[in-house]
């Protein structure tokens, strides 16, 4: 009955000051475990990493460790491999995401129409997503090997290559090996998300449009695309960040070679840190990559906000 006893004092009025302060404290209390874990595994390493980028920190030379200002960034500015890796990152990300989007949208449109055997086809399409990237990298490495795989011979037959050789060992083409693997591996993600978005479009809008005289292309252009746009933007955003950040396929298939020709920034970070053992320089590279991705995300969200109006 104690509840009934003190309820007249508070009921019908806004809670008193200490009460409100207690409510705020209570919320923070519940959030605390989550916040501390995020801080521990993300914010602290991030701060430590950024601080490394302003230090001379090479594992082989522990005696010369110390703050060195922006020296790492100046080195980076004059490092040709950095600029190559930056350009490769852009190329790698653009082609991977562009083809994943195009093929994923195509698959989603096909799977959105009923046809016999759709359920089987649908699960097959989503299969690559379940394969570990490491394994798919190894598989594609073999597929590009002219000794064990017919793929180079086929590429030659259709005129893409002049002779059946391994593109992974060609400095001009090496990057397109991992890009192909990445496209194959990432299409299902686009297909799944876009198929879900397609299924949420009310069918009667298409009926109304067909009565209003819209052709199939016009329905796609004026109904499907506007409905898919938010999903497409958010998926592109997510995938761009993931693809730009992911070194594993390149590492497995080319190790950034030959002669750094397929080096992207995450790989360069990895080789700098664990082959040259230069943690300071690697941290500077990683910081640049992070800043670029944050700028990109803000820009895309801004564009999306503008389009939404």
């Amino acid at each position, binding site marked *: 009955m104690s509840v009934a006893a003190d309820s007249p004092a508070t009921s019908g009025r806004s809670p008193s000051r200490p009460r409100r302060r207690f409510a705020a404290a209570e919320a923070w209390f519940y959030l605390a475990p989550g916040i501390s874990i995020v801080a521990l595994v993300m914010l602290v390493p991030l701060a430590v990493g950024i601080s490394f980028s302003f230090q001379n920190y090479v594992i082989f030379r522990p005696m010369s460790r110390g703050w060195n200002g922006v020296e790492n960034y100046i080195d980076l500015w004059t490092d040709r491999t950095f600029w190559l890796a930056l350009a490769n990152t852009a190329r790698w990300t653009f082609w991977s995401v562009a083809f994943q989007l195009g093929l994923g949208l195509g698959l989603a449109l096909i799977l959105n129409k009923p046809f016999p055997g759709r359920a089987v086809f649908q699960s097959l399409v989503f299969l690559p997503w379940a394969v570990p990237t490491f394994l798919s990298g190894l598989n594609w490495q073999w597929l590009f090997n002219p000794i064990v795989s017919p793929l180079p011979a086929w590429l030659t037959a259709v005129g893409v290559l002049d002779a059946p050789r391994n593109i992974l060992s060609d400095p001009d083409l090496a990057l397109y090996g991992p890009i192909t693997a990445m496209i194959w591996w990432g299409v299902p993600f686009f297909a799944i998300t876009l198929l879900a978005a397609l299924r949420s479009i009310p069918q009667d*809008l298409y*009926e*109304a*449009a*067909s*009565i*209003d*005289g*819209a052709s199939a292309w016009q329905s796609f252009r*004026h109904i499907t695309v506007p409905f898919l746009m938010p999903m497409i933007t958010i998926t592109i955003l997510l995938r761009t960040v993931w693809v730009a950040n992911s070194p594993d396929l390149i590492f497995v298939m080319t190790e950034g070679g030959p002669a750094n020709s397929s080096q992207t920034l995450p790989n360069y970070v990895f080789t700098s840190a664990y082959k040259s053992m230069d943690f300071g320089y690697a941290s500077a590279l990683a910081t640049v990559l992070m800043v670029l991705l944050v700028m990109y995300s803000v820009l895309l969200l801004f564009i999306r906000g503008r389009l939404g109006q």
Partner: protein
Amino acid sequence: MAEVLLRQVVKRYGAFQAVHDFDLDIAHEEFVVFVGPSGCGKSTTLRMIAGLEEISGGEIQIGSRVVNDLPPRARNISMVFQNYALYPHMTVRQNQGFGLRMAKRPKEEIEEKVNRASKLLGLREFLSRLPAALSGGQRQRVAMGRAIVRNPDVFLFDEPLSNLDAKLRGQMRTEIKKLHDKVRTTVIYVTHDQVEAMTLADRIVVMRDGRIEQVDTPYEVFHAPASRFVAGFIGSPPMNLIEARTVADGDGISVSAPGWPALPLDPAIFGQVGPDRAVTLGLRPEAIAPERMAGSMARPLAFNADITLVEPLGGEALLFLKMGKDEITARIFRPSTRLAPERDVRFVVDLAEMHLFDAGTGARLNAPRTAIS
């Protein structure tokens, strides 16, 4: 000129036949309403006319052109959907102009036609709004505006008012009627609401189980229903339908039903009905009244009954009577005194308003009334 002709139209879904040999001629500028319970095939038929459903058999012509294999966009029709199907990402103006934009009409023409339709429908202040910012009635108007703007040969309405509340539904019904007077076009309108059918239609098509039960003017459908089904479906409250038999009664023939006195048949109307036949007797609630409140009747017959329940509705009242095993409804207009359940009340029924249907087939037995008196 856009008359719509349906010839032996059939719709099958696998083994299930949704529409059976549908035959109908709809005249230019006629307002035809398809009415029937849900699942009777009325919407399916409309969607076949629109081209949204394939036609399994037969032929549909719009304006003397066979449209069976034409896509919806080539039929020059427009349609108002039950849930409006407005494009949610377009403003009211863009929604209405969509069809013309798809047809690549010049901007000034689109602007002018959208403005004219918006003025007609009172939508001018809402042109820049998105559908989400409109009320149900306003969305309904936008859907109609979108249909009018294209200046189609035929308007199709698929249960357009069923998502509105009762009051708004009444208002929109009146507006659709007025709109048809202004924008003279052939209209095909589907509803399950017999009041909408009665008030809007030039001709009503009553459907059941994929077949036409009756095609006629609202007056004829009400006063001379072609079957027991139509009699029970049209009219509110519905007609009293009583299982009965015909019996020889002196020179003539009477209808005998449990609880009722013998109801003599008028040989001028029911001449071909023989004795000893199972029939369904149909009496509209308006044809029955307590004797003390009854107006003038053409062929009154008195009987006694108990009033078990009274539903006063203001301008009228419904009385429920116990007759044998049946409960009978009587409808009294402008009841002069307070009514209450009461035993052994003297009633009259107007035998001139009597309908008879075959108990087996449900077909109407008396000759259809041709003259409207």
